[in-house]
């Protein structure tokens, strides 16, 4: 099979799985997950083949193929697929994480466990009572009631992501983007029986929609300006030059304006400030969904979109001083990185900590793109996808183990996601502990060993080398906080002694859940080694900086490697180790939230952003809908006009009837004329023709037709 054809085929298996499950196999849980995992495996296989063919090629630029799709006047709008080095690298991690998450979901949704006693569709499973051979009753985890539906949805989700990655144009990319938006809505609201899940689903959908509208505007602007949406046609030197020199608005060039509009889409999708509010609430979904959304797919898609649009973003960048568009991007990224790291410090829900850390890490990438550190951003995107998927799946494993404990003790008031209810889980769940530790250290940037160190260090080094001090310092502080809250999380969850009975009875999760953890842990360490800078002391040069060489080939001009300097390296060592150490020191003896001195209300309440948005946007919108649109506009003005016409017409009708119809027509013509004279008797005679029998009517009409035909023939034609 040619590589191009293979690329076309990559997104298809998950989509097929979606339709198969929805239409045919949704009654059979085993068949449904076999189809879904099988489809994910096929896509994975295709992606691996494409990836290694790309890697094997010397000076690889792109595999591309396209078809004419829509006639637009004299030309065709073409859609197609294309995998360039960036696409190949992204495809690699997407394929791996997606496959792992699919496999993990089988265990997470308790496949093979009995049906729950009181479970019903739309709510998380509550556990089932089983009786063993000795007649003892046990409460065990029960299987998810909407098991098949879950696999159908994540199949569609994977389809959206693959479509987005293989697209060679903004339009199909946007289609994949929106499919994911829909799926995230469906999956966050997967347990639709919970009001909080419903609200979170709507919030996520509405918030990302704001970004998407701007993105669509950006696409429209781009199409109007260049007449094409295909990447390879936009990112030519002359097109970029023209765009960079066309003024748009607010003193931006067309390239900058388009880049900012598209970037707002990313702000929504990748949960950057100020549209970050949906992501923490999205934790209402089942944990594989959180991993899917936060690590592998949707939020990465946002960063991927900016990476794709990088030439546009930097079209009018001369190398001295950031352009307006880049400053905006850099500011939002850096601000988000710091801001959400501060919130993460005060969260107690194990998944929420990770959610805010995701926002923060995405901020790192966005900030890196804003200062032009293309390779560093792509590198961090991929390493982050691996270790964040690992962390989310690990936290899901922890929650799963805790649920086991909750079912054992039967105390349902214990929240299995609250870290203060955990502690000491390292002995109960060793595999989860070690993999989570690896993921957490990678997130903190633990030196040398972990992938997170290399990618985060590269961003800091880039910021430092180009003199972006503000970004450098902000990101360094954020990195310090990252290490701190990660260690806080690990300490509270795994170290020390169990703080509740439930934690004592926690249990390691089945192999379908631990296998993905182990595999992802390998990547969380090993993926860093493909991107070690060449000038790094001792280690630099042992392994070639493959990532830089390979992904750099995506751009027209190969970006130059950053000069090595001790300052950013020292900073990065200091913040990672310092944060980790401080986290351990502070939290090793903390037993309850009351002893935690960082539970500051402002941080706990996420700097009151939800409340502020509620006051600024939600309440006014309700007010506008209720008071203005409904009561005043609809009821008052529009109904008022209609009522007026209705009344006027009734008045005219009444007048006509009373003064004309009843006097003139009824009395005079109808009564006097008809009864006394001819109309009534005549009608009585003639109406007998109307027998109501269709065949007699037809007979008569054909008879007439015949007579007329004969007459016409003889008088006019003969």
């Amino acid at each position, binding site marked *: 099979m040619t590589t191009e054809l293979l690329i076309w085929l990559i997104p298809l298996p998950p989509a097929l799985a979606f339709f198969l499950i929805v239409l045919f196999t949704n009654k059979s849980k085993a068949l449904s997950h076999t189809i879904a995992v099988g489809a994910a495996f096929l896509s994975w296989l295709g992606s691996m083949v494409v990836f290694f063919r790309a890697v094997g090629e010397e000076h690889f630029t792109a595999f591309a193929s396209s078809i004419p799709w829509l006639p637009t006047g004299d030309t065709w709008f073409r859609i197609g697929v294309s995998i360039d080095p960036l696409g190949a690298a992204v495809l690699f991690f997407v394929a791996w994480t997606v496959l792992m998450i699919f496999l993990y979901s089988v265990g997470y949704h308790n496949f093979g466990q009995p049906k729950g006693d009181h479970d019903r569709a739309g709510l998380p499973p509550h556990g089932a009572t089983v009786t063993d051979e000795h007649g003892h009753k046990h409460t065990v985890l029960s299987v998810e009631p909407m098991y098949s539906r879950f696999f159908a949805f994540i199949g569609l989700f994977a389809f959206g992501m693959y479509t987005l990655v293989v697209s060679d144009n903004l339009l199909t990319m946007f289609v994949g983007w929106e499919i994911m938006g829909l799926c995230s809505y469906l999956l966050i609201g997967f347990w639709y029986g919970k009001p909080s899940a419903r609200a979170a689903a709507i919030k996520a959908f509405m918030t990302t929609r704001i970004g998407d509208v701007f993105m669509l505007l950006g696409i429209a602007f781009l199409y109007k300006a260049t007449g094409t949406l295909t990447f390879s046609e936009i990112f030519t030197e002359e097109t970029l030059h023209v765009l960079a020199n066309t003024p748009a608005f607010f003193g931006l060039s067309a390239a900058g304006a388009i880049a900012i509009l598209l970037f707002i889409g990313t702000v929504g999708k990748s949960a950057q400030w100020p549209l970050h509010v949906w992501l923490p609430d999205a934790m209402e979904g089942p944990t594989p969904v959180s991993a899917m959304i936060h690590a592998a797919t949707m939020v990465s898609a946002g960063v991927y979109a900016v990476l794709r649009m990088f030439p546009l973003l930097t079209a009018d960048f001369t190398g001295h001083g950031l352009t307006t568009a880049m400053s905006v991007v850099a500011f939002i990224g850096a601000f988000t990185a710091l801001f959400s790291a501060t919130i993460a410090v005060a969260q107690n829900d194990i998944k929420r900590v990770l959610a805010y850390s995701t926002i923060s890490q995405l901020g790192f990438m966005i900030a890196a793109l804003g200062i032009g550190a293309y390779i560093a951003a792509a590198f961090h995107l991929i390493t982050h996808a691996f270790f964040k998927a690992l962390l989310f799946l690990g936290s899901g494993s922890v929650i799963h183990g805790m649920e086991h404990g909750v079912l054992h003790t039967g105390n349902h008031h214990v929240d299995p996601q609250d870290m203060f209810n955990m502690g000491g889980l390292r002995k109960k769940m060793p595999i989860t502990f070690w993999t989570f530790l690896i993921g957490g250290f990678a997130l903190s940037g633990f030196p040398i060993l972990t992938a997170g160190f290399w990618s985060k260090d590269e961003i800091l080094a880039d910021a430092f080398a180009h003199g972006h001090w503000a970004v450098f310092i902000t990101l360094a502080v954020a990195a310090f906080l990252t290490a701190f809250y990660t260690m806080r999380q690990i300490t509270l969850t795994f170290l020390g002694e169990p703080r509740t009975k439930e934690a004592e009875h926690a249990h390691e999760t089945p192999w379908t859940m631990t296998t993905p953890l182990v595999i992802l842990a390998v990547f969380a360490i090993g993926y860093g080694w493909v991107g070690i800078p060449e000038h790094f002391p001792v280690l630099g040069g042992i392994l070639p900086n493959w990532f830089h060489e390979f992904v750099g080939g995506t751009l027209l001009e190969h970006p130059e490697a950053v000069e090595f300097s001790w300052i950013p390296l020292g900073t990065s060592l200091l913040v990672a180790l310092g944060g980790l150490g401080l986290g351990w020191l502070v939290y090793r003896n903390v037993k309850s939230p009351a002893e935690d001195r960082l539970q500051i209300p402002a941080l706990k309440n996420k700097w009151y952003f939800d409340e502020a948005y509620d006051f600024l946007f939600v309440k006014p919108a309700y007010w506008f809908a209720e008071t203005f649109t409904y009561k005043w506009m609809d009821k008052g003005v529009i109904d008022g006009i209609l009522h007026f016409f209705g009344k006027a017409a009734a008045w005219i009708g009444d007048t006509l009837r009373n003064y004309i119809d009843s006097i003139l027509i009824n009395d005079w013509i109808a009564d006097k004329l008809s009864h006394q004279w001819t109309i009534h008797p005549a009608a009585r005679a003639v109406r007998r023709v109307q*027998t109501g029998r*269709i065949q007699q009517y037809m007979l008569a009409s054909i008879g007439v037709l015949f007579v007329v035909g004969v007459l016409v023939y003889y008088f006019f034609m003969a």
Partner: protein
Amino acid sequence: MIPLSWYLILAAALFSVGLFGVLARKNAIAILLGVELMLNAVNINLVAFWRYGSLASIAGQVFAIIVFAVAAAEVAVGLGLVISVYRRRNTVVADELDLMKW
């Protein structure tokens, strides 16, 4: 070879038989059967004229196809009506359906 007249006379005969069926049968479904005969007679004519006229203009066959489509639509709706009437009034005799009479 077959002269065109054979087809036309056959079609005329078929049409007349169908017409008789439409006019004379009591059962509403039988009336529809008669309609089908008439439509087929028309189709024979259309195709014959295509074959004996200009082959290049394919209109005769296209018309026949359209007649097929119309026949299918007519049968679907007609039989639907018959069944609906049968359900309400328990009869399919056309003569008994005379609600529209004076």
